[in-house]
């Protein structure tokens, strides 16, 4: 148990979409990570504190309901302030309101400081592969 890499998972803001979260939790766990799943309706602050408490290597933020643009701003800064500036942060789901060209959306969230931005309906395997690769790069 101990030596498993830890990742924090949660659905941010006032968002209650739980199905994807449960599947990601199951799949990422099954892939050998220790998932700290905060579930739905998670404030930014909780992602940061959970990451610090558990010494996690990555934060996986989900936003399905359309307010992602508002809810996700400033998470990177919070991490910086809390001293985990370099933690991996992924974000995915239906990030903005409306059917939008993903290119724009991706850019917007990369600029906010997210390491990877996922298009709607991304399958868990993709995330897991990326996680393993990114952590390896960091020698973990």
């Amino acid at each position, binding site marked *: 148990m101990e030596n498993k890499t830890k990742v924090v998972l949660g659905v941010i803001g006032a968002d209650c979409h739980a199905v994807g979260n449960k599947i990601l939790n*199951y799949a990422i766990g099954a892939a050998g990570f220790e998932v700290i799943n905060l579930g*739905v309706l998670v404030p930014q602050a909780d992602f940061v504190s959970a990451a610090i408490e558990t010494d996690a290597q990555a934060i996986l933020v989900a936003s399905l309901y359309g*307010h992602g643009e508002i809810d996700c701003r400033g998470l990177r800064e919070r991490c910086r302030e809390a001293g985990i500036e370099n933690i991996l942060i992924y974000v995915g789901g239906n990030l903005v309101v409306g*059917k*939008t060209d993903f290119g724009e959306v991706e850019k917007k969230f990369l600029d906010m400081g997210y390491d990877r931005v996922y298009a709607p309906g991304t399958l868990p395997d993709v995330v897991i592969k990326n996680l393993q690769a990114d952590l390896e790069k960091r020698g973990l």
Partner: protein
Amino acid sequence: MELKNKKWTREQFDTIRAEVLTHWATGKDVDMEEAVKFHETIPAKRHFAKRLIKAKKNGETLTQPRAGVALINEHIELLNFLRNEGEADLLPTTIDSYTRQNQYKEAQNGIEESMKAGRSLLNGFPAVNHGVEGVRRVVESVDAPLQVRHGTPDARLLTEITLAAGYTSYEGGGISYNIPYAKSVSLERTIYDWQYCDRLVGIYAEQGVEINREPFGPLTGTLVPPSVSHSVAVIEGLLAAEQGVKNLTLGYGQCGNLIQDVAAIKALEQLAEEYFAKHGYNDCTLTSVFHQWMGGFPQDEAKAFGVISWGAAAAVLSQATKVIVKTPHEALGIPTKEANAQGLRTTKQMINMLKDQPYPMTKEVLDEVEIIKAESRCILDKVFELGQGDYAVGAVRAFEAGVLDVPFAPSKYSLNKILPARDNNGAVRLFDVGNLPFTPELVAFHKDKIDQRAKVEGRSPSFQMVIDDIYAISKGNLVGRPR
């Protein structure tokens, strides 16, 4: 606060009301007397409850979209577009998610950001922030029956404001707007707060103002077995009736197997009649609503049109009073008004082509009706027993015990022990019945159905099967067969 399924006294209501109306500045403008006068001026064609009664009488299936944006004028424009270009029979006002969580400051911020951005950054219409006057403008600018649709655990202020503004229908319930929408709000709390909403509707009714109420049928929208959502629907219906609600629409979300879907609507209507009669609520008009597939959609619009059409077919073949319509943008984002109107027109075409062809009540359908009713009775009667004759108390205890259990629910007050999966014909069954108080026969029925499928697929039932089913429709199938 002591929860009881008992009509509130006016004192109890008024004390709490005084406090509720202070939750946000706009609360103080609520004036029930003025509201009653306004409601009396609403013509029948714009009156939700009356329109539903007429539809039920004529055997119509009415169409209704979901729609809501941040700003008043844009919202009015949106609704009129759906009325004119979408041929919608009934119109909604979908509330944004901040308001749903009573985060009125965030909603205010969303309004301002939307003004700046020139597009809606909110996923719905923040009615509380717009206040009675603003919402009244919507009511006066739209020529169709209007309903508030949301997902709000504590909807008391929202109810006060939208009903005072002149809405004639209101969605939600203490269970259906908690378990799928909240994480750590107790059921006691939400059922109690929704008694307030129902009581308010009852008080309007006592003054001759008929307002339609609709518990949210589909719950998590994802592989919810009919008997589970039916039990919740009937309980919320009974709780509403006790508070004086006289016009109720009970709902169900499409599972995808036509026989099961047709049977589900029949069973829902019969169960409601049965339990309302049993408990002496005989002056309450009941209608039904069928929700087109509420789970994950295909991203491709052409495929989405297929899913929408199949939902429309099931709705009209089951003779539901109304159908809630999805759009070709479903998998990707809040639809443009054009995409929303497209879903409505596809649905209208299907309804008009199928309305003259009643679905034969075959043995398969009748057997399915009996199964759903038998399962629902097991649950409902156990809830009644746990509550020692009180459905409100019983519901709380039932969720603790897993007697009521909603798959994939975010709320920690749902045990999440049951696991649904499709059988070999695509009907939603239970791969794990959890603590549902089913008879051994019913448990065996589900086991057989799942085993039958597993056998065909040459694999043993597993959580992977559940996951495959969750993705199936979005990947272009009904049953999530192994690749």
